[in-house]
């Protein structure tokens, strides 16, 4: 029992990341009809926004401290971050400690801007082209973005810690009446899950309860008619692209402490997220979210030793296996709509 709860919890944070990326992919696909292979790169750029902010806060200048001597008797060099100099030591230290959550604010405008530029500059020209061309050009873009990040931040993962208060683990088992230390769960992963839930809820509320969202949904259902009603649907879809980019970016920002960002994390997540989208059903937002969590949890169950001893290697391939079975048994995916991407 405790093992099952533990695996469900473990699956939640990865599932949240899958769900957020898949949500963005589905938004883009549902609105613009474009298959975006560069979405994983947006996730990665988000994570590197967190890295950049934490590096910016840690920019420091060196002073000589005459009170301390190194072993040669010279005054010791002391590094003081600029933020500590400007805002005082306490606020400065707090800023450095909280750089990842603060990167949320920093990343939103950046991600939206990147989304706008991508859509207006590149994707726009590919609406009328076949899906294969869309896949290929965004695949090329993904390579380019990934290499730009690599040349600026290096090939190694950059550790980006969470704020001090979230670094411990929470003993979840005690809450449910198990022995202590049986089900422990890092705080930051709880934060990540809650954050993902808020974002997903926010996106759905935005689409469901605002006029803007209503127009967008109408456009997803029938783009031509909405256009004929005198609504500039292209502009709204561009904004949705920016939103989808921001969702992927935020997912990346918050994921930085869980897994140190490296330049190919986007590609790793992209393949999985595509599988998630297909399992959930192309063009179905609830399907993408549900499939994200489902596959995340399935993956963590498959990595249990009990399961692995029965079917060796299952943890590596479970997601792909599920995707193959779903695609063959239920071609439309779990919640796919009729008529979307059927050929």
């Amino acid at each position, binding site marked *: 029992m405790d093992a099952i709860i533990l695996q469900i919890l473990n699956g939640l944070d990865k599932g949240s990341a899958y769900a957020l990326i898949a949500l963005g992919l589905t938004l883009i696909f549902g609105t613009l009809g474009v*298959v975006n292979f560069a979405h994983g790169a947006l996730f990665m750029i988000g994570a590197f926004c967190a890295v950049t902010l934490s590096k910016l806060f840690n920019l420091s200048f060196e002073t000589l401290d005459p009170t301390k001597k190194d072993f040669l008797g010279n005054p010791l060099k002391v590094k003081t971050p600029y933020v500590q100099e400007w805002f005082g030591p306490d606020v400065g230290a707090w800023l450095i400690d909280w750089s990842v959550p603060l990167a949320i604010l920093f990343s939103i405008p950046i991600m939206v801007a990147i989304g706008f530029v991508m859509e207006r500059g*590149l994707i726009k*020209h590919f609406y009328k*082209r*076949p*899906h*294969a*061309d869309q*896949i*290929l*050009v965004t*695949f*090329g*873009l*993904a*390579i*380019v973005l*990934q*290499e*730009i990040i*690599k*040349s600026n931040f290096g090939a190694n993962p950059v550790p980006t810690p969470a704020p001090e208060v979230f670094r411990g683990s929470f003993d979840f088992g005690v809450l449910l009446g198990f022995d202590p230390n049986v089900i422990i769960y890092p705080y930051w992963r709880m934060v990540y899950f809650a954050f993902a839930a808020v974002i997903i809820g926010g996106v759905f509320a935005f689409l469901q309860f605002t006029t803007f969202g209503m127009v967008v949904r109408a456009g997803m259902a029938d783009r031509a008619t909405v256009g004929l009603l005198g609504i500039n649907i292209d502009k709204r879809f561009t904004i949705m692209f920016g939103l989808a980019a921001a969702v992927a970016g935020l997912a990346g920002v918050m994921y930085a402490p869980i897994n140190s960002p490296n330049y190919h994390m986007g*590609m790793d997540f992209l*393949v999985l997220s*595509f*599988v998630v989208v*297909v399992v959930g059903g*192309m063009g179905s937002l609830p399907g993408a979210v549900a499939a994200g969590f489902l596959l995340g949890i399935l993956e963590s169950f498959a990595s249990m030793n009990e399961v692995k001893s029965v079917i*060796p*290697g299952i943890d*590596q*391939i479970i997601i*792909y*296996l599920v*995707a*193959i079975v779903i*695609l*063959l048994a239920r*071609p439309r995916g779990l919640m796919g709509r009729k008529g979307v*991407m059927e*050929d």
Partner: protein
Amino acid sequence: MLGLNRKDTAILLVVAALAIFAPIILNLFPARSELAFFNAGYPDLMQRFVIFGIFAIGFNILFGLTGYLSFGHAAFLGVGSYAAVWMFKLLNYNVVPAILLSIVVAGLFSVVIGWISLRRSGIYFSILTLAFAEMSYRLAYSVLTPLTNGETGLQVYTDDPQVLMQAGGHIVPHLFGLEMRAREVIDVGPWQFVFPVGYYLCAILMLVSFYISIRIFRSPFGLMLRAIKSNQTRMTYTGLNPKPYTLAAFVISGMYAGLAGGLLASMDPLAGAERMQWTASGEVVIMTILGGAGTLIGPILGAGTIKYLENVFSKMNEGLLHKWFAFLPDWVESPVIWVVSKFTGEGWHLMLGGLFMLVIIALPGGLVEGGQRIMRLFGRKPKAETRTSTEPAE
């Protein structure tokens, strides 16, 4: 000739001539000159040209003719390599059984994957093939370690059975005694030309593959495949079942990939799982598109271009750039070098990605279409080799 019409014979002969004289054509510059940097006439690189040429020719039979975009073709290449190395381990270093088995195994493997994946089309097909390739890649790294030797890569050890091995037999891959590594070096004045055995084996197999591909392009079967690409629904209405045709195309291209994998292992008896990663599948897609999908000569051009650029650009380092741009004033030189260095050496993939995007955006028909456009620009009759090409992939 050989059942080809005049134009196709001309293409085949041009490719054959290029392949045979490649060690001379690619070594344009004297060995000790500054420009020797741009030479590509050494065995390792030439072998990669033709091996990846085979891979791309096979991929083009699937993607170029039927329009099915597979993102998992590297899996067949990897399987072929493993099969070949296993033959070295079990029999001896003769490459014939190795290459044959690698084709057969990759063919069987692609029957299974194709049978399942081809039940869907469009993007679903891409994702299914991607899923299968990723599965194979991950399994090769984890559970199948006894078969693939995991991260170390599969290689031949001295305590392997090698049942056909005689005392004093060759300990490197060979063709009935002719070692793949053997080469003839001819010095002509300041030039140096290398004629490696391994390269010529690959080149001959590439020509055979190319010939088969021409025959497929011109056959009724090839016409069926094109019908699938242009309108599958209409094809089914006329009472034809497209499935056997697509499956056949898939298996053929899988066998081409297996052959390429077997050759890779024959040139260097080592097989690693990274050959199956999906970025490797992406690479063959890039080659085919860059050259021109659906054209005869495009894939070979694409494979050659990518491998050549990869070689040249990843060799450029900052010191070399300094030497080249030394004629510029200092304040111009440093920014120029800064920009260029982002695209060379380690940053070669940036160049690749950018080039690929550029081709997709501006030149969907690839280099072949580019060549046609230039020909048209000069108002001349297009050459035979470009005119026989089909319409670019849409």
